[in-house]
């Protein structure tokens, strides 16, 4: 098969390209949809192989690596397969040239190039095509269009092979990556996944009028009643935010999640509380964690049942004693007889599923200030990074399919 190692290269590096899509790309190449041009090939293979904007960034990087390695002679490890090379090659418009000579002459800093470019703009008065100093087409000067030069400034026109890199490396899809921690909207989308599966929860208790009519007609007119599951969302959500202290750097991230949770109107019930470092015998209604606006944790627990899912949000970083000993609330009025860890446990067993979201990136869990307590807490319940990807995983975990 033609250059199938591009296919395996993409797959090995995490882009899940299917056979079906690959064959479609082959068909497209046969129809000459890439028009023998690397930039067109870039768009074509993206449109056919990449189906999520969150993969655009990875695709860009992989595409760049793959074709850079193949086109500059210095790195021989990733040779572009000859068939594709032939395919992409521009057969005309190129004069013979000594490649090394051109590389040497044009291997300049961008600033230098720009300066020389401006100078030549001043000097040059007429058309120059095929030369090696002036602006023109098809030559080896670093300025102009569709010619060969390792670095250069492209002036208008249609992109040739080399300059496709500019387009590719400049496009910014980094923000769409699912491991990025951004955006209320992405959080909202992730939370909506907590609803998709919930249409299938519960008993068949609702009269399905359409199905009943259908069945009755099929039954020759004698009544046959059909029931269906109500399409209401059965998920109830309890969200507990760690507030203050070490959480301050993550305030805007948490506020993003808070807004997303609040905007989600698809939960049957939504309860939001705050705690400081670890939940104790009082849960607070505001981020300030003051006694006047707090509730008895036992009372809160009494109103919960297994249809609630618990979402803890916090850095889980504290002194080890805060988990093992009583009390710890920041207003000093908390007098407790149960340790933080036990409270945590009480909440977890009361709810039908609980996860912890940590704003600290996963790779720092083991080494940071909170390493000990993070480890202790993640042995109680699954912990995920507070990112779009982490939240998605957490939601999946809460729904019981990982």
């Amino acid at each position, binding site marked *: 098969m033609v250059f199938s190692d591009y296919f395996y290269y993409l797959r090995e590096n995490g882009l899940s390209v*299917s056979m*079906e*899509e690959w064959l*479609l790309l082959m*068909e*497209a190449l046969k*129809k000459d*949809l890439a028009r023998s041009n690397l930039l*067109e090939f870039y*768009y*074509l293979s993206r*449109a*056919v192989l*990449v*189906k*999520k*904007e969150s993969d*655009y960034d990875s695709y860009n990087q992989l595409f760049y690596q793959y074709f850079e390695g193949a086109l500059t002679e210095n790195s021989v490890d990733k040779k572009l397969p000859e068939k594709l090379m032939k395919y992409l090659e521009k057969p005309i418009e190129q004069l013979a040239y000594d490649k090394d000579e051109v590389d040497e002459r044009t291997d300049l800093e961008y600033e230098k190039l720009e300066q020389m470019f401006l100078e030549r703009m001043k000097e040059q008065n007429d058309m120059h095509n095929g030369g090696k100093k002036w602006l023109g087409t098809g030559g080896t000067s670093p300025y102009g269009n569709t010619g060969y030069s390792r670095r250069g400034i492209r002036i208008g026109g249609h992109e040739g092979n080399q300059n496709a890199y500019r387009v590719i490396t400049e496009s910014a899809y980094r923000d*769409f990556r699912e491991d990025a921690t951004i955006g*209320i909207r992405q959080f909202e*989308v992730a939370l*909506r*996944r907590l609803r*998709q599966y919930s*249409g299938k929860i519960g008993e068949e208790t609702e009269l399905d009028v359409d199905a009943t*009519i*259908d069945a009755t*007609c099929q039954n020759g*007119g004698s009544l046959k009643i059909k029931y269906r599951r109500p399409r209401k969302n059965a998920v109830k959500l309890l969200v507990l935010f760690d507030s203050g202290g070490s959480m301050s750097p993550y305030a*805007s991230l948490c*506020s993003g999640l808070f*807004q997303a949770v609040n905007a989600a109107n698809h939960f049957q019930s939504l309860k939001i509380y705050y705690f400081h470092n670890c939940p104790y015998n009082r849960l607070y209604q505001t981020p300030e964690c003051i006694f006047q606006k707090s509730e008895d944790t036992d009372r809160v627990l009494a109103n919960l049942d297994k249809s609630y899912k618990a979402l803890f949000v916090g850095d889980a970083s504290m002194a080890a004693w805060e988990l093992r000993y009583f009390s710890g609330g920041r207003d000093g009025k908390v007098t407790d007889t149960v340790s933080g860890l036990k409270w945590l446990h009480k909440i977890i067993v009361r709810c039908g599923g609980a996860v912890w979201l940590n704003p600290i990136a996963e790779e720092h869990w083991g080494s940071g200030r909170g390493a000990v307590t993070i480890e202790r807490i993640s042995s109680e319940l699954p912990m995920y990074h507070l990112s779009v990807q982490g939240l998605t995983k957490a939601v999946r975990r809460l729904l019981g399919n990982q």
Partner: protein
Amino acid sequence: MENFSGTSEYIASEGLSRTVDIALALKKPLLIKGEPGTGKTMLADAVSKAMGKKLIIWNIKSTTKAQDGLYIYDTVQRLYDSQFGENDVKDIGRYIKYGKLGESFLSSERVVLLIDEIDKADIEFPNDLLWELDKMEFFVNETKTQIRAKHRPVVIITSNAEKELPDAFLRRCIFYYIDFPDKKMMEEIVRVHCGNVDEFLLHQALDTFYHLREVKDIQKKPATSELIDWIRALQIGGIRPKELDDAIPYSGLLLKKEEDFRFIQKKGNYGLF
């Protein structure tokens, strides 16, 4: 149509027009995603105009089922007719009502079919359409007839990314994500919709617009349609470009949420009125 390059009312970026060409050449559904207000729905209109073909729109709602797009067997009407003897109830074909997809298959010439906001429906919805979109045919059980597309319709599907779409479905589509237009492109778009806009006013307005979009805590970012309405209002109101330096006149057209309005007001960079 050889190559799609937008229309006089619709500005398409190079990547998008290439992708439309690819989808047409490969005869695959084109899936378009993008932020609200990037002109996803308008694309289908533009393609149908550029091709000179009729546009059929299937608006998806949360209750829409795949079957609705194919056909509905109107059993109630048949029952009614049998009670009151008005029509020939033996002819079941009379009670088969074709949906938008069926309509596009049965059309005597090639049409453009827009399946708008497919993510609104149930998660399984796209999967239920796999066969029909692939083979361009379906079977009417009640009349035992096979409906096959006379002319393969051009299928354009839009999604707001409210839900993930199933992989099996994605594999069969050509995909394009419409970026939010940059300033240069936005200038073109505004010119298409607002006619002759004062150069200086346009630049000032775009500066303000992109500045607002960059404010992190804004919940509903203004999009293209809001910008166009706003610039029209500025034109009608005879606002001078200078006035946009430190104020946002008719700000209600850009900021649709009270919280956002208050947030910008509190930041104090602009006077809102």
